[in-house]
């Protein structure tokens, strides 16, 4: 079998990086509690997955991401649709939305805990607040991006409002909505892990805090890898969806 150079790179690059990592740790005798060697992190990963420790935590985090992402997306789509329909309302509330949008919502996390408790609700709400804005803005921009000629076409053909929306405006808005969704998905992952950092006893975020406060450097490194892979997986899942939906582009 001949491998494409790019496929080859997928294996070569990490191998080189791990090699450098191993070389550095061995050569300079870095203590494992500062930077554990790759094989230690590797066996920690194996222990986490094969031993089954990771699953409830991963499930918890994924649950928060999915629930928060779905709720935030629904809210963002809905308000986006309303605002795109009512430019007057949009002009009225746009400055406030911009204010909330630019405020670092991570800073709201303690507030959500105060309001919604230490349980899963406050975590989901943090994720919702992170997903909501990019999706809403994507929806408004997308619906606005419909060309005037297409709207004229829908008038020539006497399309009903419903037909115009479903057959012209919504499909035309999909690319912009998806850029909102992708931003939202990345934010959701960060938000879920951060929320677990702050409170609770389950989740990838919790495991990281646990690893950090108990000086389990191999576990911490393993968790960095797991969360990074999770982020990539979430983003890729959406990117694949987009590729499939937007194959016409």
């Amino acid at each position, binding site marked *: 079998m001949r491998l494409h150079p790019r496929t080859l790179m997928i294996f070569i690059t990490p191998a080189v990086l791990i090699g450098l990592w191993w070389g550095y740790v061995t050569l300079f005798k870095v203590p494992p509690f500062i930077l554990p060697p790759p094989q230690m992190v590797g066996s920690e990963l194996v222990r986490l997955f094969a031993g089954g420790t990771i699953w409830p935590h991963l499930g918890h985090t994924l649950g928060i991401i999915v629930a928060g992402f779905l709720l935030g997306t629904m809210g963002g789509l809905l308000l986006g649709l309303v605002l795109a329909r009512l430019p007057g309302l949009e002009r009225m509330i746009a400055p406030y939305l911009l204010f909330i949008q630019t405020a670092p919502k991570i800073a709201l996390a303690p507030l959500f805990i105060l309001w919604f408790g230490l349980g899963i609700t406050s975590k989901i709400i943090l994720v919702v607040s992170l997903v909501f804005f990019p999706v809403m803005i994507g929806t408004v921009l997308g619906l606005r991006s419909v060309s005037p000629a297409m709207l004229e076409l829908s008038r*020539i053909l006497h399309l009903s409002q419903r037909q115009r929306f479903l*057959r012209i405006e919504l499909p035309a808005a999909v690319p912009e909505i998806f850029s909102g969704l992708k931003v939202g998905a990345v934010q959701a992952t960060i938000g879920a892990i951060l929320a677990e950092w702050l409170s609770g006893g389950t989740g990838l975020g919790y495991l990281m805090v646990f690893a950090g406060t108990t000086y389990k450097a191999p576990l911490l490194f393993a968790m960095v890898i797991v969360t990074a892979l999770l982020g990539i997986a979430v983003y890729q899942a959406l990117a694949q969806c987009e590729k499939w939906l937007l194959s016409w582009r």
Partner: protein
Amino acid sequence: MVSSVLVRVNDVTKSFTTRGGESVLALSETTLEVREGEFLSLIGPSGCGKSTLLRMLAGLIEPTSGQITWAGGTPDKGGDIGFVFQEPVLLPWLNILDNVRFPLDSFGVDRRMGDEQAEQMLALVGLKDFGRALPKELSGGMRQRAAIARALVYKPRIVLMDEPFGALDLLTRDRMNDELLSIKAEVGATIVFVTHSVEEAAYLSDRVAVMSARPGRVRTIHEIDLPKTRSEAIKDLPAFHGWLSQLRKELK
């Protein structure tokens, strides 16, 4: 041959209000008839109101005063008017066949019948093998042919074309002109065609309405007395060149 009048534009004016609140007269009192089955061109410099007039015929804008009377009642259904824009305005997420079938879908025509009619129309505009292609995969000329197919597929009472070939290169444009004539001969549609090309107007039209600007109005209407069946050959006739210089003179 005396054909019946399809639309009568009677003392129609159109003024727009600018951002500054001033009223600008885009079209001063205009009277014009469109005859059943004819090819009528509106030609004139920019600002003469030719697109405005076309858009009023399409029902996209309302006249400020005057009436537009249709034989058989004002168009009020989706299938009454075919419109071809300067750009193809295809829906990029649909393939060419779905784009051409789009109007039929929205009028609730059965999918299989719609496919059949759309395929026929595609064959007529020379895109038989491109039904499955996406708009982005076709050239500008081919996209515009698909747009024409979409405007004709539901057999509208009138086809309005707003400089449909204005964005194409000259060679493609000449070819599209010939194809448009053969399509028209095939389906027998009434066409109102906006252009600023004197050649295009003289070559395609049964009648040409010459318009002038500031204020926009119809100056003269000519019956183009060239042979009914047009082909490249008539471009060599002295009569054709006579029309070209006549129209050019009036446009000055």
